Each structure stands twice: as C-alpha cells, then as structure tokens.
C-alpha cells in the first residue's frame, strides 16, 4: 500500500502522539509512585524513629543500657538503624557520641559491603558512615576509600581521617593530598589544620621541600596559619626567598603575618613595593601586624596605594602600630581616604 505524503505525515504524527501519550502516562504514574513510595518511606522512618528514640536516649544517659537498644532493632531494619544513629551522631559530641558509636557497632559490617557499590555516591555514603561511627575499628575500609578512583569517595575518606583524634592516619592523608588539586586551597588547608600539631612538622618541612608543587606548599602555609604554628615563621621566610609563585608568596606572607616575628620584617618589607597588587597588600598586612613602630610612615604611605586592599591593610596596620590619632585626624579633615579611616576606626562593631 502506497500512502500519500499527507497520509504518511499523519501516520508519523499518530505514532508520535501515541509515543508522547505513553511518555506522559509514564511520567504521571512515575510521579504518583514516587509520591507513594516517599510517603511510605517517611512513615516507616517516623515509625522506627518513634520506636528507637526512647531507648537510644536512655542509653545515652546510661550507657549500660546499650544492649536494650539492640533488642528493638529487627534484622531487616539494621541499615535504617545505622542511618538513624548517623543522623543523631551529628548532633552530639564527646561521650554521647561514643555511646552512639557503640550502638551502631554491631551493624557496621553491613556498611563495609557497600564500599564495593558501583555508584560513587553510595560508596561515599558508606565511607561517611564508617568514618563517623566506625573509626578506628574500620580504618582499613576508610583508608581503602582514600584510594578510591572517585574523587568524591576519596575526599570523603580524607575528611574523616584528617581528625585530631586520629593522628595515625595523617601520613596517609598527606600521601594522597595531591589528588585534591582541584579543590579550594583554603578548604584543603582547613582539613589539614584539623589534624592538629601532629602534622605541623611535616607541613613546615613541606614549605621548603623542592619536590612539592607550589600549590601544595601554599596549602601547607594556609594550614600552618590556621593552626597558628609558632615555629612556622622561619621556614616561611626561607620559602619566600626561593622565588615562589604569586599564590604561594601570598600564602607565605599571610602565614608570616600570623606567626612571624620582628626578625621577619626585612623579607616582608621587600614585598611592600611589589608590582603585584595581591603581594603588596599581603605584605602591608604583615607589616602592620609585625612592625615595632618603625614602619609607620610606610604604612601611612600605603593608605594612598592604588589598590584598595593594600590601603585597607595599611590602614589596619596604622591602627595596630599606634596611629589611631592619625586616622582620627584623617576623618576630621575629610582626607581623601577618610571613608577608609572611618571604617577601620570603627571596625570593632560600633557604627
């Protein structure tokens, strides 16, 4: 049978309509099923929560009652129980958290199996659960997570291993840290700083280690700054002499500003006239915090810098260096930087 072009078009359109109707129907049914399933899940969660909440609270108050809680966890709801405890754990600290770990411990083997799931999100969730409730007992599984091919899983593992209470995992975290080069540097620095003074020596050594890339040294410098490591000033000053890239130089100057001493002033001064606005402003920041008063004129000059950030740091430096009256005079005289002076004078909070 030969169809005319109009008839052919009609047939095609009819097929399209049928397919689209089917799709529409599928979407509608799917949305309804999702609503029903989610409703059932919410009801189940609420029911389990109401069943477990009392015994769990009793066990937190009296840890000898941990076994009583296990008696009300049916086998098929063990994973639900672990998730329930995980949510609870986020809200408590100290001994209470330890009790919650005890409550979850009999069921954590179930979670280890999930580390092999093909979906990275689920593996990351397993690492999160074991990291929160299972360390150090399940450290080998979390360390496996650190080596996972997915950056999400790997970072999740690093976040849980990089804790002050587990200094033994610090070398493993540092060994894998360059996997996270795409992450925000400050974020990585905060994570390393979390590990506490156990890693400070390694971080200090890393500042002048030629085998480390500059971005990683910058992360180390920011971590030491967060830790306010009192011994980091000297290696930072030494690293500044090794022609670092601008990001690293800025981080080193920030570190010196935080932990440096008067003897680091010469290296700081060498950057106050840098052509790079970022370095100039960081140097001014460090100068303002470290100066013994002899740099007041340089700081006052900095107020007129073309970079607003340099000017802000210079103004703060002037205030720190005892130049408050000078700033007050600028406000009174409607000096061209009077807005800046006014802001800095009142930064304590009083408008």
């Amino acid at each position, binding site marked *: 049978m030969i169809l005319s072009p109009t008839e052919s078009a009609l047939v095609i*359109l009819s097929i399209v309509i049928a397919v*689209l109707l089917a799709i529409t129907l599928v979407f509608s049914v799917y949305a309804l099923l*999702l*609503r029903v399933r989610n409703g059932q899940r919410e009801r189940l969660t609420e029911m389990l929560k109401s069943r477990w909440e009392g015994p769990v609270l009793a066990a937190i108050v009296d840890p000898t009652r941990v076994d009583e809680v296990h008696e009300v966890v049916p086998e098929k709801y063990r994973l639900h129980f672990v998730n329930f405890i995980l949510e609870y754990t*986020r809200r408590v600290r100290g001994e209470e958290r330890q009790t919650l770990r005890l409550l979850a411990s009999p069921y954590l083997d179930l979670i280890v199996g999930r580390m092999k799931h093909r979906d990275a999100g689920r593996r990351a*969730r397993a690492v999160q659960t074991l990291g929160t409730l299972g360390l150090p007992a399940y450290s080998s599984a979390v360390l496996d997570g650190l080596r996972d091919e997915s950056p999400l899983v790997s970072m*999740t593992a690093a976040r849980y291993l990089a804790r002050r209470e587990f200094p033994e995992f610090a070398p493993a975290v540092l060994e894998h840290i360059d996997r996270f080069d795409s992450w*925000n540097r400050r974020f990585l620095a905060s994570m390393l700083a979390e590990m506490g003074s156990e890693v400070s020596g390694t971080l200090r050594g890393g500042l002048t280690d030629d085998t480390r890339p500059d971005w990683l040294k910058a992360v180390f410098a920011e971590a030491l700054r967060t830790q306010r490591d009192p011994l980091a000033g000297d290696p930072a000053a030494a690293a500044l002499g090794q022609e670092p890239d601008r990001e690293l130089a800025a981080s080193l100057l920030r570190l010196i500003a935080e932990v440096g001493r008067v003897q680091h002033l010469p290296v700081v001064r060498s950057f106050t006239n840098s052509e790079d606005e970022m370095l100039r402003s960081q140097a001014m920041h460090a100068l303002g915090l470290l100066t013994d008063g002899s740099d007041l004129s340089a700081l006052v000059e900095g107020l007129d810098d073309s970079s607003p950030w340099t*000017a802000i740091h210079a103004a703060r430096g002037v205030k720190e260096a005892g130049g408050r009256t000078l700033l007050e005079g600028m406000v009174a005289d409607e000096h061209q930087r009077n807005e800046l002076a006014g802001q800095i004078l009142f930064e304590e909070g009083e*408008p």
Partner: protein
Amino acid sequence: MSEIAWSVILVFNWIVLFYFLALHTVYLGASLIAFKALKTYALRMKSLDLSDLITTAYAPPITLIAPAFNEEATCVESVRSLLTLEYPNFDIVVVNDGSSDGTLDRLIDEFNLKPARRFATAELESAEIREVFRSRRHPNLWVIDKENGGKADALNAGLKYCQTPLFCAMDADSVLEPQALIRIVRPFLEDGTTIAAGGVLRIANGCVIDKGRVVDVRLPQTLLARLQVLEYLRAFLSGRMGWAAIDATLVISGAFGIFRRNIVVDAGGYATDTVGEDMELVVRLHRYCRENDIPYHIHFVPDPVAWTECPESLSILSRQRDRWQRGLIQSLTRHRVMLFRPRYGRAGMIAFPYFFFLEMLGPVIELLGYVSFTASIIAGRIEWPFVMAFLSVAIVLGAALSLAAVVLEELSFRRYPRAWDLVQLFILAIVENFGYRQLSAWWRLKGTISELRGVEGWGHMQRKGFNVSDREAA
C-alpha cells in the same frame, strides 16, 4: 492569494513544525540529562554533612547584595530572613536604589540603622551614593542609600563596597532558605575554578512565612501564579539543571546567584545598559574567561532556594516577560561573537545557538506559525486530521515536558507536600497549553518588538507582600 504565496506559507508551516520539534527535543533532552544529574546530586548530598563541612572547614566570607527599589511591603521580611541564614561569615548590603516609597525608613526603623563609613574597594560606575548606614543591632547589616539607577547600577554600588571574596546577588524581595548559602557555596569548596553558582527560585505566593522563613509551602491561590510555579519547576529543575550538567550554563537568576567578586569586578561589573543584567553578566563571564585563558566553571545547585513573589495580574506578568525577552535579546546580540565559535566551548557551540535560535527567535516563529497555520486551515490548504494531529502533538508534548519537571521535583526535593498539590500540578500541565503558553509567546513577541523599537526600562512591578503567619501578623 497566489500559489507562490501559499507555497511560501506551507514551507513556513514546515519550518514552524521543525522549530517546534527542535525546541521540544532540547527540552526533553535537558529533562533527561537533569534526571540523571539530580539523582547523582541527591546521592552526593547524602554523603556530605554540609553543616559540618562549613563549620569545621573553611567557609569563604560572602557579601549578600540586595538591591531594593520600592520594596516597602517586603524588605523587612526579606532582611530578617537574611539575618537568620546559617552561615558563619557574611555581610548583608541592602542597596536602596532611590526608592520613592518608605523602603529606607522601614529599614532604618526596624534595624536601627545609623550613618557609617565604608571604604569602596572597586572602581565601578554607579549613581550617586547618598549615605551608608550600618545596623546597631546587627553589625553585619549595611544599607547603601543611593540615587535611582536601576538594578544593575545598584548591584554595582553594592559590589563597590563588597570586601569579601564572594558575593551573592539577590532581590530584596526574595526569602532565602536558612541553609541556602551553605548549599550554594559548596561548588566553590569542591572546585577552585568555580567563578559563579546559581540557585533555584521558587514561588512564594501562597506560602506562609514566619520570621523570614517559609514555614508552610503551598501552591498559590490564583491560577496565574500556579501556572508560574510549574513554569519555574520546568525552567530550574529541567532546564538549568540540564544545561549545568553539560557545563553550559548561560543564565543565573538575578534573584539568587553567587559570584567570585574579583572576576566580576575585573570583567567590569554589571552592565547598566541592559534590562537582562543577570544573563548578560554570565555570558560576559564566559567570554571574559575564555578570552583571557582563565580556567573557570559556572555551576547550578538545585537545592539552595530563594522564594520570590511572582506577578498575579496579567498586565504585570506581561511586563515582566516583555523585559525578560528584551534582556535575552540584548545579552545575545551583544555577545553574538560567541555564536558557533569553538573558542567559547560548549557555551558558544551549544547553549548560545539554542538561546539564539530557539529562545530568542522562538516567539516570532511560534506566533507567525499560529497565523500561517490558521490561514492555511481557513483556506483549506491543510487537512483537518493533520491539524488535529499536530495540535495533539503540541499539547501532549507540552504536558509531557511539564510532567517531567513534576517528576524531577518529586524525585528530588518534594517541596509541595500535599497530595492535592501534586494533582493540581498534573492538571496545570494540561491547562497551561490552552491559552497560557500562547499568551506567553505573545508577551515575548511584544518584548521582541519593544526591543526593536528601542524601549528601555523595567516597567512597574507591584508587590503584595508575603503571606506572613498569623502569629507574626499578630
């Protein structure tokens, strides 16, 4: 009419058909991509304790810049909601853009504002600043009072006084959810090359708001507002999620987006000679980064929510859509150099052509299509079964796309908890095809004509104010 003219009309009908299929294929493709992306996102979020991430790790300081023009009805509620945000380190800068109503007075009274000094950190042009205020009650709340200059001008004024590495551009009449900043800042932590991230806008009409927080999510009372709920679901959960998944985001809503301050300042801040400053900025950022070899990413995050009031009258909605269309045309024509240029990556090769040919020219093709189609029917040039079949495709396809958005909502965030809400969304997916879609196309065509005529300005937007809880109203 001559046979040649009819031939032209019939060819045009086929062009319309092709346009229609192309447009909806992109929509459907975006929905499918969004489906996978949302599932991945939901799983990812389960493995992250966001509050822990922010409180124990580095939380980059953020300045919220909220331009306000005649927002007397909603500004206090909005600022209260901003003050309750869960984020460790943020400033709020409300820019009163020469309001002629009591916006500034309400802010001064409510938050005990006093004149203060604040140093400008960027050289961006803006209308004259009259006074800078700081709250005695909330030291992180600043208000800049300036001459009227438009939203982009107000954003530039706020940007001048921004002293944090990130800033969040928003509307003063929006209500951010408490964890909105924590959620939207995540891409900046995970990816050091992130320069911007957009969040989701949802319709606040009908919702109950208590102390600056949406406490009861409901569908709006009016049909027009309800239709916009569906429209926003489609635009954000299907559209923007889909575009972001292929790294080709061209739009971050001006009502809620977060940006790296230095890159926006270096790119020149907001353009004051367009009514689509939000899209223009994002397109320009693509261009600026590509042309200067700056590695960058622009993200869309589907769960930080800003609740906003939508128009409930046809005249105001038509003005809004007119403006959106003009903004789209201005952004695309200004940066037309990006069209099909591999240098601009997927933004230039995929997203830009889509917006240029299907979104910008779409209303013209669609409405001319209605005319030529009707003329062809009246003249008996198209057979009725064909007409009916084509209209059926149009309606069913439109409904399928809207239902896909409802599925995505159900799959991910389920903000509308009542079963009746879901049923209403189903009904709306059908109803919108009879009149609303055509009206929408008409408004956009009017916007195109306005742009060709050189019409400027935003048009008036009347705010009713949020539906506050009984407790708060008392």
